[in-house]
């Protein structure tokens, strides 16, 4: 479904990604784990069109989307839940969700998806008239995910959905990620919480200072000494 082919991405003179390649098949949950500053978010931003790769290509369903405008990529079915949620705090929950469906014109479909999102996140329904800035961290994460789902994506990019959340909430969020996936949405998940990420993922990539250093099925990586040492608390 998605194929990233040895891309190089720069911030000014600093190279953030060095020949990164990765593949996501339809229906999978693929996770990308790595330390702070390894280039995980950069990769997602490049896929969703916020950054342009200098070399290499990104293929989505066989077509190149590298360097295309972000709105074109959303239109083709890729939604990105950014790191830090980035909800519109000065607008209501409902308005945030409406913005998620910005490019859609099918009113009936949008209404259905509102219901789906409220079913998935009942808290959002309770707070739909509230300003998004007044939500708790977990609710904001749910809103950010719900907002992305309003575009009816086929591929969902999730950047650190567990960041700053209490352990119980992290579990809830991951259960919902699996639920979203079970409806047929393919997921590329970036996480620092490697334990949780590997527990839901089919396959995983490990990224270190801008390079993919390891990849394989989630079980393989879970068992790998290298990953245990670096990301799973090393016992």
């Amino acid at each position: 479904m998605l194929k990233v082919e040895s891309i190089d991405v720069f911030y000014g003179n600093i190279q953030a990604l060095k020949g990164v390649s990765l593949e996501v098949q339809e229906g999978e949950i693929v996770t990308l784990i790595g330390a702070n500053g390894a280039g995980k978010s950069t990769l997602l931003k490049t896929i969703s069109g916020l950054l342009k790769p200098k070399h290499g290509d990104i293929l989505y369903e066989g077509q190149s989307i590298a360097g295309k405008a972000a709105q074109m990529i959303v239109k083709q079915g890729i939604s990105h839940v950014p790191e830090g949620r980035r909800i519109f705090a000065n607008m209501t929950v409902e308005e945030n969700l409406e913005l998620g469906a910005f490019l859609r014109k099918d009113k009936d479909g949008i209404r259905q998806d509102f219901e789906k999102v409220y079913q998935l996140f009942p808290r959002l329904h309770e707070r739909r008239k509230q300003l998004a800035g007044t939500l708790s961290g977990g609710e904001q994460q749910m809103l950010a995910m719900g907002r992305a789902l309003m575009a009816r994506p086929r591929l969902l990019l999730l950047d650190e959905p567990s960041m700053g959340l209490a352990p119980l909430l992290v579990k809830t969020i991951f259960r919902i990620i699996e639920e979203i996936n079970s409806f047929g949405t393919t997921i590329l998940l970036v996480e620092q919480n490697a334990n949780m990420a590997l527990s839901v993922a089919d396959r995983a990539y490990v990224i270190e200072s801008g390079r993919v250093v390891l990849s394989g099925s989630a079980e393989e990586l879970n068992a790998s000494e290298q990953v245990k040492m670096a990301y799973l608390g090393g016992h």
Partner: protein
Amino acid sequence: MELIQQLVNGISLGSIYALIALGYTMVYGIVRLINFAHGDVFMVGAFVGFYAITSLNLGFFPALLLAMVVCALLGVIIERIAYKPLRNATRIAALITAIGVSLFIEYGTIYVRGAQPEAYPSTLLPDKSIEVFGVTISSQSLLILCTSIVLMILLQLIVHKTKIGKAMRAVSYDSEAARLMGINVDNTISATFAIGSALAGAAGVIFGIYYIKIEPLMGIIPGLKAFVAAVLGGIGIIPGAMVGGLALGVIEALVSGLGYSLWRDGVAFIVLILILIFRPSGLFGKNVREKV
């Protein structure tokens, strides 16, 4: 009664400031730029209205509409040519460019049509005096006030109820997140310049009807005062610009009413200094620290 009379004058003048201030504040809200050419867009609006009335024999509302359309286009052209290439440049570069654009429009206008002033025809709107509780209000200033209020309500509807308005709010809050929603940031910024400039164009025509005399440098002082009004209300906040404009108009009228007409312009800038010292985020602003 004299005081109430001044108050009415102040509100009329203030509604003109408010219309111009809205453009300042909307543009600042979305691209963090003080568009110093905005006062000159107001001037162009006044001239378009004047020529529409005198040469094309249009009435008040068609002339107003034409001025708004021309100014909207002008605003978009200014943004695309002068500001868009500088979107990632330092703020000071954009600010200097804005001053350059301002001078270009002022002296470009003088080059094209000369520096001589023009007078709006006074017969355009019926000028009867209406007496309410001993206060005389001219029907003209009443109409002007109503026009401004209708435009401001229209703006609120656009910003809160339409898709482009929601896009504008999203981009001004977080343009990167807005892009992830599929919002075209460039088009949204253009729309913001178009709407803000259209309001300035309307203010130009209203100014011409109210004060008769227009000339190519007429945008400087009202432009600066509208800037003060925008800061007074809290720059980037739309209701703030409306209230700031009205408040500034009333303050000026009261100062004149107390017999210090010569201090009128000075007071506006004293207000600016005071607000910057005591409440830099403006009346409606929250103290938000800049994101690093």
